[in-house]
């Protein structure tokens, strides 16, 4: 990238000239970041398939759908509060997205220690989220008797959609936490400042890796926004 990015046309002219040029379409963007965006796009297709099957399954069944605010209520000091745990999980995941955005900022400013600390905070939020989800699953499976084929609240499809959608999202969060911890270690050790080669890739990396990690993590938060709206509130 020897050509200065600001000399290229911007806006709609930029769109056509970027795509009609015979080199790379995504100017000034590392291939890793472009590929993470493409991966995220394909992942939205998978989650959209879940969303479509859930919404059509729910709308087309003649049985009554379980009321989420009763299924997911939590008893606190003798009074039951609807959706309390889900609300707390939502706030925790949003907060971990906030710390991730700040970690990306500190990474690009080459503030090695603060970047690693905020990555660790993000991983902590993700781990708390997964733990609370494990608690939720345990409660539903062992105390309420919810199964993918049956549940005591209403339409039988509820269980299969619940485990499929939250399970797939929880897997994404778990994978994210593992990679956040790896990135935090690499950042703290100063891999991106010294150009130390990666264990698997054997390539030198840079703080753009933190932004790529951030894209994935924000996407996990983004999916939860849709799950929270359509599965828990609808």
């Amino acid at each position, binding site marked *: *990238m020897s050509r200065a990015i600001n000399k290229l046309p911007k*806006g*709609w002219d*930029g*769109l056509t000239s*970027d*795509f009609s040029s015979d080199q790379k*379409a*995504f*100017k*000034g*963007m*590392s*291939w890793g970041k*472009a590929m993470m965006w493409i991966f*995220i*796009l394909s992942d*939205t297709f998978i989650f*959209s398939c879940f*969303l*479509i099957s859930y*919404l*059509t*399954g729910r*709308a*087309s069944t*003649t049985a009554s759908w379980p009321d989420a*605010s009763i299924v997911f209520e939590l008893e606190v000091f003798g009074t039951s509060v*609807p*959706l309390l745990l889900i*609300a707390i999980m*939502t*706030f925790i995941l*949003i*907060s971990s*997205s*906030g710390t991730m*955005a*700040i970690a990306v*900022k500190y990474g*690009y*400013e080459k503030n090695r220690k603060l970047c690693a600390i905020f990555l660790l905070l993000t991983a902590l939020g993700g781990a708390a989220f997964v733990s609370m989800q494990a608690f939720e699953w345990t409660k539903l499976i062992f105390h309420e008797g919810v199964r993918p084929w049956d549940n005591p609240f209403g339409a039988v499809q509820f269980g299969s959609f619940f485990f499929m959608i939250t399970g797939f999202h929880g897997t994404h969060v778990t994978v994210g936490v593992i990679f956040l911890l790896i990135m935090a270690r690499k950042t703290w050790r100063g891999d991106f400042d010294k150009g130390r080669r990666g264990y698997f890739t054997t*390539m*030198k990396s*840079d703080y*753009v*890796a933190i*932004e790529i990690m*951030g894209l994935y993590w*924000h*996407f996990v938060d*983004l999916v939860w*926004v*849709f799950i*929270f*709206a*359509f599965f*828990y*509130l*609808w």
Partner: protein
Amino acid sequence: MAQYRNKKVKTHKIGIYLWIWGLLFVFSFFSYMIDYLNFEGSLRWTLIVLFMLSKAALIVAIFMHLFWERYAIVNVLLWPMTLMLLFVWIMVAESEYTLLTRIFYFILGG
């Protein structure tokens, strides 16, 4: 990624992230209140979708920096996502027909 090493990247002030963080908290709190205060019918669904799309837009535009990216990547991402949402809407509309046929054949007996 070697050619990007030690490239100067312009960063934003921390305030913008804290602001978005706060806004996401406010929108989530409002969404939770929709359920807590038992809003019903089309008011409930409109508000849920409104807060959901606002939160999604803030995360994608600011946290994922898409607002500052070039139009090439922005268009590659947003058009397929828009079409997916349209597809969701079409399939939900279709499911009402499935429900009607089920009521007709399963409950009313054809």
